[in-house]
């Protein structure tokens, strides 16, 4: 193997009591790759993301970041090792200003900064995601897409090695969606390694290099997006019959 994968998931399993949410899933993400993690509702995508970010610990199996095992570490150690994420239901810090929300990622994340340097970085990132000049705004006064942008800026603030996006595009209207897709495309062009859980098929088609498909906790297909989406098993599991 020539290049060490950014993320390698080996036989990851997560059981909640008798329910197998993630069933011996293995895949790899190359550095600079944008991987789509797709599948029907309840297929274990978010659980998979939670295993990588440390929100949950795998029942068995292992996950490595650039060759270093991270599975089993607490979430804050994984964040410092270089994995940042956004949440399916947007999680802003309501009593902090927008700039402080981003600062949180810059101060404690993978690449740590403090003081004026961190504030400058936070302001730059706000501008980067389209919230330039809104640093003093309370995030609770922001629209849904702006809160999502804010969360993305916070995740980027620590300059992570891998970015996890959990349905970052969900709930956006068509024009916001276009803006959102462009933003992710820019991040990809920068060479960031990204795993995105997504239901928006347009985004998967236009953004992802590869995708992994999960169904009922198991990985049922992976590969180039157009190949995977025409795989009969994926069509059956994901689209529920021959209506693709």
């Amino acid at each position, binding site marked *: 193997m020539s290049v060490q994968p950014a993320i390698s998931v080996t036989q990851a399993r997560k059981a909640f009591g008798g329910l197998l949410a993630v069933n011996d899933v293995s895949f790899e993400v190359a550095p600079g790759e944008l991987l789509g993690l797709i599948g029907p509702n309840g297929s274990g995508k978010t659980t998979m993301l939670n295993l990588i970010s440390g929100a949950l610990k795998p029942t068995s199996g292992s996950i490595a970041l650039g060759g270093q095992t991270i599975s089993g570490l607490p979430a*804050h150690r994984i964040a410092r090792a270089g994995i940042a994420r956004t949440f399916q239901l947007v999680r802003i810090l309501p009593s902090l200003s927008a700039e*402080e929300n981003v600062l949180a990622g810059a101060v404690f994340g993978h690449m740590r900064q403090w003081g004026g340097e961190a504030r400058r970085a936070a302001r730059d990132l706000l501008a980067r995601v389209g919230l330039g000049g809104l640093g003093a705004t309370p995030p609770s006064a922001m629209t849904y897409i702006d809160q999502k942008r804010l969360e993305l800026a916070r995740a980027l603030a620590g300059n992570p090695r891998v970015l996890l996006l959990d349905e970052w595009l969900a709930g956006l209207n068509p024009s916001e969606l276009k803006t959102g897709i462009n933003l992710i495309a820019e991040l990809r062009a920068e060479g960031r390694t990204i795993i995105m859980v997504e239901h928006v098929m347009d985004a998967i088609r236009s953004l992802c290099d590869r995708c992994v498909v999960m169904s009922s906790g198991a990985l049922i297909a992976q590969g180039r997006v157009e190949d995977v989406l025409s795989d009969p098993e994926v069509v059956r599991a994901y689209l529920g019959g021959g209506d693709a």
Partner: protein
Amino acid sequence: MSAFSGREIRVFLAAAALALAAALPLADQGYYLSLAVNVAMYAVLCTAWALFSGPTHYISLATAAFFGLGAYTVGLGIDTVPFAALIAIAGLVSAIVAALVGLATLRLSGVYFVIFTLGLAELTRQVVTWLQTNFTTGVGLYVFTDLAERHIYWMLLALGAAVYLSGWLIARSRLGFAMRIIGNDETVAAHVGIDTAVSKVLLFMISGAFIGMVGAILAPRFAYIEPPAAFNPMISFQVVIMALLGGSQRLWGPLVGVIPFTILFDFVSGQFPNHTNLMIGAAFMLVVYFIPNGIVGVMERLRLRLGLRKTPSASGQEKAA
């Protein structure tokens, strides 16, 4: 406006208030000084308590444990160790106990933590009593010093200044920023790389150390130290009530609760000595039901409401910019 910034004016006002408070013994050495010692004691206790409980929302009833440990440190060492060193040792002992308790319990949430800290004060008291009855001649310790009421008062003021300075510095540190994030959303805090357990334990240690030092400073006032007085659980409850009455979200919040409550408590215990528990219970319910964010919370809501009337012009400016 003026040549001074808001911060300079505030620092000046705080210094002036401290100087004025320090001059009190010159005016009276009797009742009012005694009352002022109580106010100063609870001001330091409540502010130190709120350093931890304000941002974390963990209600700690361990105040009596740290306070008693501080008093006992002085009781055990007063004949051999200088008093100033004993205060420092009391802070250190309390910080160590806080670290142990924190590591064991801060992973617990809410009500479990409350019960544990209440139990801790009782446990410490029982252990001290047991040690004394089995290994020493009596249950109590005598603390005789040359320190007068006014000296205790000045030491409390100095410690109070140290607590405020610490709180101010913490608020501007990474630790303070981490605590604000944890207070908002602990899951996010962990996912941006904050070791939430270590942050909370550190703050609990700082808070506990100051409380232990208050106990040490007050030991000479007791003259005779015995477990029921030093580890009196009422101290824990009163600290919670006063801090919540004032408001634990601002550094100066607890002080706003301490001053009226201590004076009222002094009056009630003087006029109706058998009804102090009733007063504490009633005060607790009133605070929790009617002003859960304290007097400071009420003040800020009023200010916000007044501010809202002005918003049309403010939002207009924002759009222009």
